[in-house]
């Protein structure tokens, strides 16, 4: 039996999954920024956060991140720029994050399956989760929403309009 070379112990890179995860965080960040400028439910939640309140969602140990900072009455997406966070949600690793970022499972399931850790005030994390629910409401069709959300919020005419703005300006251009 020939000895196994060190090359055999080297794990394969997960470049494609990493790229998809990075794109998902980018889309979520831009959608969050756009929705926070449009949606009253999100703005009501954000009113409790002081100016500069920073939320970071990242993939450990050295994966991509999504940085959101409260500026005025909305959250501004700051890409992956590392900075101190008031609320830091860290997925344990890429495989833990992937089903969540690709909308195969919802936020409650992500926590139920111990996929992520949270640093910060838990009650503020609840606000973040409610905001994420609204953002996901804009991003995904009902079929996916039913899978990942406990209760699918009704799509009012105002929300339909917001959804169009999120898709036409928010995701491609990072506006409003």
């Amino acid at each position, binding site marked *: 039996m020939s000895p196994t070379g060190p090359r055999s112990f080297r794990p394969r890179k997960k470049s494609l999954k990493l790229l998809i995860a990075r794109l998902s965080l980018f889309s979520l960040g831009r959608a969050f920024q756009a929705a926070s400028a449009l949606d009253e439910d999100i703005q009501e939640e954000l009113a409790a956060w002081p100016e500069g309140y920073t939320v970071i969602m990242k993939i450990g140990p050295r994966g991509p991140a999504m940085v959101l900072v409260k500026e005025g009455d909305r959250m501004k997406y700051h890409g992956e720029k590392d900075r101190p966070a008031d609320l*830091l949600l860290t997925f344990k690793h890429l495989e833990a994050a992937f089903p969540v970022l690709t909308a195969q499972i919802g*936020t*409650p*399931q992500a*926590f*139920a*399956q*111990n996929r992520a*850790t*949270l*640093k*910060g*005030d*838990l*009650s*503020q*994390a*609840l*606000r973040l*989760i*409610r905001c994420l629910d609204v953002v996901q409401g804009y991003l995904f069709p009902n079929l996916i929403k039913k899978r990942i*959300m*406990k*209760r699918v919020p009704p799509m009012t005419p105002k929300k339909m309009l917001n959804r169009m703005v999120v898709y036409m300006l928010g995701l491609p251009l990072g506006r409003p």
Partner: protein
Amino acid sequence: MMPSYYEFFCPVKILCGRQAADNIPYELEQFQARRPLIVTDPGVVRAGLLDVVVQAFSGAEAVIGGIFQDTPQDSSNVIVGQVARLYRENGCDALIAVGGGSVIDTSKGVNILVSENSDDLMEFMGAYIIKKPLKPFIVVPTTAGTGSEVTSAAVIANPDRKVKMSFVSPFLFPNVAVLDPRMTLTMPPRITAATGMDALTHAVEAYTCLQKNPVSDAYAVAAIALVREYLITAVTQGRNEEARLVMANAALLAGMAFTNSLVGVVHGLAHAVGGVAHVPHGVANSIFLPFGMEYNLDQVAGLYAELLLPLAGTEVFAQTAPAERAAKAVAVVKDLKQKMYDLCGLPRTLKEAGVPRDKLEEIARTALGDGSLIMNPEAVDYNDALRLLQAAYE
């Protein structure tokens, strides 16, 4: 139903039985600890329970490094800071909590500060922030309900910042839990009832919330069956050692279940009504349990149907048609709540617990910030919370 993935962890050594407290010095020796600080409260001291633990050190190599006996019912970061200073000034090397939920959570907070050599608990707020093992920590519960002796969480108020700080970490598990029937024999009937209903609530929510798993299920079912068999005896015959010990075990089993499966809307409302209107946690859980079960009925009827067996026993289970078992389980919990009222006046409604009606909106808003809602099977928004509170009012 098998979850697609789960984790279960509970590394606590359990010492259970008459004279269990006498083993505390021996357990400290296993950690090479020689100067423990005892944390307790005035009620425990008045009831003579502290003497049981102090007496255990007679002839032991370890000596008591200090005693803090002023833990209030709702502890805070200020108290935690005071106790941490006492620990450092007296050169202590371990902690012993003798009391209920507040004493145990305070001790967990102290353990964070003295182990991390910090003065600021806020640094460690959140889930999985603590990164290293803490000082040896032994818990002697004097109530049978919170299950804190086997949980990885602590909640400590920060009145300056108006925050209830939550801490979750596998390093927060105590090293040893001591269930000694002597420690709960003097518990008055109403507190026995409230803490017993607290344990029942832990078990029912553990069995039905989103993070449930086969291991937590086993503990939850065992806990419910023990509550069914012994809670009424513990309330009516306080000096019955067997009933006391069984209820201590029920609380412990329920604690092991819910620290791994987490809890839901009943706890979310109970924490909020505790924070806003200062209703004791066990009393609040008892009030909300049937309402929470009814609220979740559509989502988890099958699970409630399964719980009828430990809740009511084999005869009732067999006599109830499968389609009616879930509703029957809720009815059994309602009956038990009524029995607790009849036996010792345990409040059945928020009104009986002294909650002003004009506080309901504030309680509903507060509940929305409670992490328990994440794992509840049914979504809960402000209107849902308010409706539940109104239903539970009178």
